[in-house]
């Protein structure tokens, strides 16, 4: 049996990044992915003969330069050179708004455009202030650890350096909800609907829920190759990012093993010794790095029996019921719609007609029910990348917000058809004529995403991104620095700081911690 220095569990983007970085640091690494294909929630799948699309994540918003450079992703075929997509707030009557990099165009009052520009400038400034903290392990509170103290001091200093007015404004606003912020600053309901949608996307928050601004700041803190507020459709779908990461991992000497589901992590005397695969194969290593969800890692793979009750309680309490569904639609062609030419259709289209509409779509989700009128974002990636569909045909990739993981009464076939019908009817209302072109529509509820991507709750961030589950509380206090209560077992996935999106920083921070800690021993 070959022996390894490190086992990485999970072949999503964070797992691949962690494996590649450990490999580059000279460790002998094996990466174990349960599914037959790598990628996790960042795969490209053929969902209908001849039609391919990103399965879950479909837009790159958070891929920092250091991840691209340290892994040499460009060398391994990463193509994110395409233009940043504008966002179009669709309106039934055709009075659409177009938002490009923080500025709004279209049929909008001049004062409103200026107000939006100012608001975006302010929030982008706040996001930039908090951003350096994303690329570092969160500080430990209540210790004399020098690095922690410096890291906290740095954050404090960055906030102080905003100057008195902006600092006060940041501290006043940071825990606000996005609805109050938008009511303070804007008047155009279409615009407010769009921002409210962006602020709550992928979370169990309505615009009026406390903390929804922070979720928006996290979105604004993203950059793609250094340019902030970008929305990139990767060529070949999100799976192409995975291909580049897998290439980097292979080049770093990592043995990639898809189709190797881990049944449990071996723990002896409080230290991880390796893993046992489903089927019984045992692989030993001094280090086990899990990019899987923290609850899955600790409760399912390590097991509650090897953990203190306090830890079991904390892990069980992480909120991670997903809230977003996906609809992949194969189209026989592009709809012809006045006011939406081919260029516009190639943008990211958002159906969130007002802030109230977003809140009202959220309300039923609190009680495990379906929204009457779902809010959603969609892209037609086959316009810029014809390889995704047969000639002349197209792919519509939709992410619907507020689809409950636990539907009251369960996810029956009837419930699925009902949701599909409601989503398609909303789309038809905004893109009239598209219904006739639908060849096939594949629905994924959070329960489907959980099953297909092995993400508990179907939550693509591996846990809600809210203030009580962020920074040094992510995934929970005792594991916030990537180490776990089991020696030699580390977390490196989206469940850890800084969190979700196809970003790779969790893996990068984790590997830095691992090399520092394990190097010292």
């Amino acid at each position, binding site marked *: 049996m070959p022996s390894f220095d490190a086992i990485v569990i999970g072949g999503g983007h964070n797992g691949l990044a962690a494996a590649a970085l450990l490999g580059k640091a000279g460790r002998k690494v094996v990466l174990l992915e349960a599914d037959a294909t790598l990628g996790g929630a960042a795969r490209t799948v053929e969902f209908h003969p001849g039609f391919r699309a990103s399965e879950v994540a479909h837009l790159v918003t958070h891929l920092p330069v250091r991840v691209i450079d340290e892994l040499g992703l460009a060398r391994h075929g990463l193509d994110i050179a395409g233009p940043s997509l504008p966002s179009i707030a669709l309106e039934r009557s055709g009075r659409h708004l177009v938002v490009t990099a923080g500025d709004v165009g279209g049929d909008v009052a001049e004062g409103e455009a200026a107000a939006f520009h100012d608001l975006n400038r302010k929030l982008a400034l706040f996001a930039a202030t908090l951003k350096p903290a994303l690329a570092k392990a969160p500080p430990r509170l209540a210790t004399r650890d020098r690095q922690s103290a410096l890291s906290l001091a740095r954050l404090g200093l960055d906030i102080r350096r905003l100057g008195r007015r902006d600092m006060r404004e940041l501290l006043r606003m940071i825990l606000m909800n996005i609805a109050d912020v938008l009511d303070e600053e804007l008047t155009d309901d279409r615009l407010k609907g769009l921002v409210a949608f962006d602020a709550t996307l992928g979370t169990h928050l309505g615009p009026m829920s406390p903390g929804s601004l922070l979720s928006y700041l996290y979105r604004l803190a993203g950059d793609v190759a250094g340019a902030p507020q970008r929305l990139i459709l990767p060529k070949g779908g999100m799976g192409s990012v995975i291909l580049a990461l897998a290439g980097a991992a292979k080049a770093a000497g990592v043995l990639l093993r898809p189709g190797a589901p881990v049944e449990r992590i071996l723990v002896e005397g409080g230290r991880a010794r390796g893993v046992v695969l489903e089927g019984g194969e045992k692989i030993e290593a001094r280090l086990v790095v899990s990019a899987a969800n923290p609850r899955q890692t600790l409760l399912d793979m390590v097991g509650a029996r090897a953990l203190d009750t*306090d830890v079991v309680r904390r892990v069980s309490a992480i909120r991670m019921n997903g809230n977003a569904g996906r609809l992949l639609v194969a189209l026989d062609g592009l709809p012809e719609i006045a006011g939406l030419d081919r260029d516009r259709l190639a943008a990211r289209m958002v159906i969130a007609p007002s802030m109230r509409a977003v809140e009202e779509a959220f309300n039923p989700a609190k009680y495990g029910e379906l929204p009457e009128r779902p809010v959603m974002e969609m892209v037609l990636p086959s316009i810029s990348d014809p390889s995704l569909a047969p000639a002349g045909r197209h792919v519509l990739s939709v992410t619907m917000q507020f689809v409950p993981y636990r539907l009251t009464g369960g996810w029956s076939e009837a419930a699925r058809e009902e949701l599909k019908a409601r989503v398609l009817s909303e789309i038809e209302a905004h893109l009239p004529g598209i219904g006739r072109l639908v060849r096939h529509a594949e629905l994924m509820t959070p329960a489907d995403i959980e099953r297909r991507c092995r993400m508990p709750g179907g939550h693509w961030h591996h846990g809600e991104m809210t203030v009580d589950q962020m920074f040094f509380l992510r995934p929970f206090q005792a594991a916030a620095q990537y180490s776990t209560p089991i020696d030699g077992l580390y977390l490196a996935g989206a469940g850890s700081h800084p969190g979700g999106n196809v970003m790779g920083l969790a893996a990068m921070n984790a590997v830095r911690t691992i090399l520092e800690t394990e190097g010292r021993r």
Partner: protein
Amino acid sequence: MRSAAAETRPLTHFRTPHLTTPVHERTSACNRNHSWVPWAGYMTAGVYDDETMEYFAVRNQAGVYDISPMVKYRISGRDAAAFVDRLQVRSVAKLKPGRVFYTVWCDGEGMVIDDGTVFRLGPDHFRICCQERMLPWLLDSAEGFDVGIEEETEAVAGLSLQGPCAFEVLKRAGLEAAGRLKPFDLADFQMGDLPVMISRTGFTGDLGYELFVEPSRALDLWDRLFEAGRLHGIRPFGNDALNLARIEAGFIMARFDFVNAEHTLRPGRSRSPYEIGLGWMVDFDKGHFNGRRALLAERDGRTSRYTFVGLDIEGNLPAESALLYVKTGVGTWAEAGHVTAAAWSPTLKRNIALASLKRPHGLTRHDTLYAEIYVMRELMWQKLMVKAHIAERPFFNHPRRRATPPGPY
């Protein structure tokens, strides 16, 4: 899982801030002082009539203490032994069916949540007796174990029979068979038509037994014991007498000698087993248990903050709650700890105390400590600095406690 009785009880708790025990009819008849103290939500006697007489009944005759309020949990199932191992610090492999051990259980920081006794009723059946209600903690700790956890505080009544004549009383009550019980043994017996589980345990450091029956038979048990013990001067004893006896025995008490970790509000106020003199119990070889990682780090890193010691204090003034000092020079003192329990021992004729000291004090027995004792003499306070010497525990350690079969008294 909760007992069904608890689910269906009407919400009238506000009418009875303190519950009465199954033998309340008898204890209240004996309680000439109407002195009641709360214990785990029940009212129990503080002093029935005279603390000294009650204490001497424990040391010279036989005394009965109502332990029904003790919190009790029944643990059963295929993983019961593994669960008990995971919960507390000692190794269950060393606890055979029919045996009892005293233990503590910790949180993830290695701080003591509670102490208590574990009764191994059978290979897969245990009873945990403790001070605090902790069903949520037990249930959460049971995640991943095939085990049933049942609150049985109200389903089991208990009387503790303590003192040199305790066995004589049992014998006269028809329980001569209990003579085979060694300390920390337990077994089921028939007292005529009354089934009773008896363990040779207690909180007095003397010969003694704890008898457990169904609550509906508790008065019957009481009457039979008092009838059998009439000629041996049997009497009920209350909390105050028990406290004196347990200090002599060197036993610690949650809430007094340490604060349960779940109750502490201020940082640093909870205690690890090493800090309350119970480090010897911790077994790192048995697999994972709550607090293992923290306790291992504490042991290996020598980061314990406190020691727990017995003290012999000069003079005869009980040093209750006294701060303890060491002399650092002429007229200068440094605080070294505090007394958690203190008493003049009538049997030993010694002024004894239990104390928590800041390390390194108490690691050796050579420190000379001074207890700051305040006495009020005819409305005048006087402060005395009285020498205190670290002493071996238990202070009271009579061979009759261990003799099997017990000697005739």
